[in-house]
């Protein structure tokens, strides 16, 4: 029968094509949701088989290439992220998609992501990488050409640099599948240690690492290459962005892990270590750190709700990169844990944004406000998501951030530690900015009749919120899975507790004591007198009459002082740099064309004569 890995990878694409062809309003949603649910079911079922055998294998020969697919613990975890958040996003899309071609490309990008996580050789890794990029690109193309073009160019630049790196490896190692490359590079490192000359020279390794870094940096939205993310995440069907930023950025993260798996020992031998972290890892970590700060600060200054979460998603991925960069077993596990939690709460956030945009039709902060009464369910989900992203104890966001902090600071990395701490506050800051502008304060008159979320979106948000809470209170669940990657018990502790020797965190205990604290406060509260409900407009405004037209609020430009303090840094923008390069290339092309093909036959004849001359000189 067809191997289950093939089913997991290709069901979304096949259902996407069927949904696109059928194009019947009710039916295509059903098929597509089925298309996202089937791989998830197979993955859950594969969990049992993984307990018995180490991995599920499958290989196929196409046009001279031997494609291999492998499902083992690490890829299972990432595939599960893709499965869960993908399913939720597809559910969300059921209520926000207008035309059928969006189903085709959303599910195509899901197939691409599954393919990447399950691929076991470089060529299928590259092919699925391209499929994912193309699928997600077409989702953005319809909404805004400039944004989609910027996204496509940067990710194709990444893809081609990966192809170059694969080419160099193929030329030197001769094979393409992960196992052989890993072994040859390992032996190469050993040969280097023993002093004999190695297969790959120093600048070969530098080139390969640089190219892989660019390729995966673009997808993960690392600092200098993050410019595409805000536009791409905001200029598309918002519930698709839940998958786009929640899952597709994990492909970039998975790529970084692939660098460790394939080239880890060789790079370690070649470039040595700084303190505890490998030198090449420190580069990833440092760039990740900068991404946290840049992403966070820019998120706080945004005026558009989608852009805010796009930048926030970049800064969260920065955390994961720091975790991976530090390179110790604990920090990689912490990074993957944070990848899981980021997928969960970022997926949830973008679904919330989708609901807001769907219901109010507005995306700017200045014309939103006071939605908390009108959309209670969504606000409850937002409250859970805020607690999780800001890293407030009982939820998964805190568990993964806590693990990451401990892992990084334990490796004696003061600068990285400082960056992460700064990042955690930024998360706090832009979330409050979002809540104030959207949920609280005076409600503009035209938003008075906003209904609450449609059913499919509500279910999707419910799933993710539930997972956020469950993995927060019982972090042990995830820890046991993570330990399987390295085989040995790195994060000890029960289902409720994470114990890593120099620090302990117990999810259940904290929740109990938080509840007791709130109960005590509640008792004091209810001891007091009865409370009179007062409308939002009845507030002390220093004597100003409060009317609907003249309600004072600082939704627009909420963080003006921050913008002033950072004025100096905000002048540097990589976005403008890439645009200038693009324009320069086009002008070069224009002048080149007009000079070479100037239409004069005589000039063309002169080209021929010149070539003859070269041949004559060269020959003799």
């Amino acid at each position: 029968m067809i191997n289950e890995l093939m089913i997991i990878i290709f069901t979304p694409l096949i259902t996407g094509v069927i949904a696109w062809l059928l194009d019947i309003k009710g039916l295509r949603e059903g098929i597509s949701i089925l298309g996202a649910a089937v791989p998830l079911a197979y993955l859950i079922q594969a969990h049992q088989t993984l307990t018995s055998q180490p991995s599920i294998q499958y290989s196929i020969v196409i046009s001279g290439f031997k494609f291999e697919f492998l499902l083992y613990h690490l890829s299972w975890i990432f595939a599960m992220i893709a499965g869960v958040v993908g399913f939720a996003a597809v559910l969300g899309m059921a209520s926000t998609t207008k035309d059928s071609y969006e189903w085709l490309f959303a599910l195509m990008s899901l197939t691409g992501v599954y393919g990447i996580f399950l691929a076991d050789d470089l060529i299928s890794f590259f092919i699925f990488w391209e499929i994912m990029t193309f699928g997600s690109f077409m989702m953005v193309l319809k909404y805004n050409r400039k944004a989609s073009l910027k996204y496509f160019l940067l990710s194709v630049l990444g893809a081609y640099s990966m192809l170059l790196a694969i080419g160099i490896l193929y030329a030197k190692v001769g094979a393409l599948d992960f196992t052989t490359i890993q072994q040859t590079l390992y032996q190469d490192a050993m040969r280097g240690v023993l002093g004999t000359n190695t297969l790959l020279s120093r600048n070969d390794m530098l080139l390969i690492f640089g190219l892989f870094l660019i390729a995966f940096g673009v997808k993960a939205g690392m600092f200098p290459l993050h410019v595409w993310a805000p536009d791409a995440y905001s200029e598309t069907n918002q519930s698709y962005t839940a998958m786009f930023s929640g899952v597709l950025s994990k492909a970039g993260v998975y790529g970084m892990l692939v660098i460790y798996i394939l080239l880890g020992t060789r790079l370690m031998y070649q470039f040595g270590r700084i303190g505890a972290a490998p030198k090449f890892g420190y580069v990833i970590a440092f760039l990740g750190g900068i991404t946290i700060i840049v992403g966070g600060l820019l998120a706080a200054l945004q005026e558009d709700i989608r852009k805010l979460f796009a930048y926030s998603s970049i800064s969260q991925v920065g955390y994961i990169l720091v975790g991976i960069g530090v390179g110790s077993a604990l920090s990689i596990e912490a990074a993957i844990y944070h990848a899981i939690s980021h997928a969960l709460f970022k997926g949830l956030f973008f679904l919330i944004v989708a609901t807001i945009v769907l219901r109010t039709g507005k995306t700017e902060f200045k014309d939103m406000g006071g939605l908390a009464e009108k959309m209670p369910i969504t606000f409850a989900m937002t409250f859970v998501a805020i607690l999780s992203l800001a890293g407030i104890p009982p939820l998964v966001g805190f568990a993964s951030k806590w693990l990451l902090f401990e892992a990084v600071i334990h490796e004696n990395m003061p600068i990285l530690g400082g960056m992460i701490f700064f990042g955690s506050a930024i998360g706090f800051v832009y979330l409050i900015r979002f809540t104030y502008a959207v949920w609280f304060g005076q409600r503009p008159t035209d938003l008075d009749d906003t209904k609450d979320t449609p059913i499919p979106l509500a279910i999707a948000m419910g799933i993710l919120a539930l997972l956020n809470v469950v993995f927060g209170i019982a972090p042990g669940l995830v820890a046991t899975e993570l330990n399987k990657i390295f085989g040995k018990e790195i994060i000890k502790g029960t289902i409720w507790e994470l114990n890593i020797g120099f620090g302990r965190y117990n999810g259940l205990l904290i929740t109990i004591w938080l509840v007791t604290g709130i109960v005590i406060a509640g008792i004091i509260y209810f001891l007091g007198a009865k409370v009179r409900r007062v409308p939002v407009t009845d507030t002390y405004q220093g004597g100003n009459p409060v009317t609907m037209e003249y309600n004072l609020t600082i939704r627009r430009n909420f963080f003006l002082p921050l913008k002033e303090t950072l004025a100096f840094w905000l002048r540097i923008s990589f976005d403008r740099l890439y645009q200038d390069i693009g324009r320069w290339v086009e002008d070069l092309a224009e002048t080149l064309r007009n000079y070479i093909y100037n239409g004069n036959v005589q000039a063309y004849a002169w080209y021929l004569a010149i070539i003859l001359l070269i041949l004559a000189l060269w020959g003799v």
Partner: protein
Amino acid sequence: MSQYASLLIALPLISAFFVPIIKAIGKKVVMPFLVLITAIQMGMATWVFNEVYTTGKPIIIMAGGFRPPVGINLYIGHFAALFVLIIAVASFFMAIFSMKAITVEPKDKYAMLSLLLMLGATGMISTGDIFNLFVFMEITAISAYALTAYNKSGEASEAAMKYIVLGGIGSSFFLVGIALIYGSLGTLNMAQIAQLAGQMNPTVAQAALAMLVFGLGVEAELFPLNAWAPDAYQAAPHPVTAMFSAFVVKAGLYALARILYLTHAVGSWGHILRLLIILGTLTVVIGEFSALRQTNVKRMFAYSSISQVGFIAVGFALGTQAGVSASIFHMVNHAIVKALMFMAVGYVALELGGVTLEDFKGLGKVMPLTAFAITVGAISIIGIPLFNVFWSKIQLILAAMKAGKSGVIALILGASLVEAVYYIRLIHLMWFEEGSRERTRIKENFVFGTIMLLLVALIIIIGVAPNMTWNIVQKASADIYNVAQYIKNVPLLPGVSP
């Protein structure tokens, strides 16, 4: 039985001369006659194709019964069988397309010229004799000049004039090359040249090879020599442009590769390869860059086709078996995609009267089927997986990297990045932008629609399951690459030498 394969050459020739008689019978009959002839040619080509691929032995036809090297022989090996089929199929489709696309009056002249074009290309690919190759090249060239000038407009004649002048210089130097080879080896038969190539003294061999490569370079549109190509593609009638990019260029490229690998015993072979790689890379880069700010879509596709051809030339010039098979695969894919694209552009020009970007705005609403065809073609050219050009691009890139040409590949990947830009702009223009003037939806011609959908289906089938095509292509590349096998297949008269 296999001697009937010579009909592949004979049939177009005879029917070309019958055209005036057919015109006498009835003016309306000429175009259907052309379609009929190309259909028969396609039938024969398929028969020859599976004959060669089942028996595995090439078909050798001795003109006039004289055994080579005295007589001229046609050598229809795996490559020739494959490409004769592609030529026949492409000209059949374009014949159907020209039923409606050709409006300028002397249609019989058009029918005759397109038959000669097909004849020339088939001859170039299947000939086994170097001078015969020159003759067929001239037949193709002259019918190409005439077809470029067919529209009689100022632009068409200007493009034809450029093509004639440059083509003339090219072919005369090609003849010089043949003269030098004949002077030192005394034979014109390709197999014998391959045998004796080692004995030529290096400088003469170098000069001869340089001349041959130069002559064929003009025909195969390498960088500085392809200045005529964009104008010729733009000014020629639409079916002719499709035929140009589908097989005329390919024939030139094949001849280049055949001669290159025949004379691999020559001392200074390495120089020529390095020169060809440089020229090929320049073609790719300059081709892509010039297409970036193009307003005329047909000229944009011409530049893109030139740059893809440059990529194929780089593949041939790698000098390895993997390189040759990858470039042949790329030739097959490129032929399919470019035939589709130029046919679609031609059809848009036919219906909307122009090919500027302005006409393409909002095409998705006006001519959805054609717009869909162009989109699939564009996406596959960029090199997206699940489409056919991706496989050949990957093979080419890996072959080049294996041959240690990572710098060249970096340039070519940069160029294909540029290519992605202008194709995506076109796709966005077609589907997501509103046309300036309100246009109702045009009822698209059923026959052209089926042809386009057939080609689109072919693209996706090869894209999803490339195994079958890859095996064919590997056999075809073996035919070119290992010359020893080629020499063994040609029954040379023993003892005849200069």
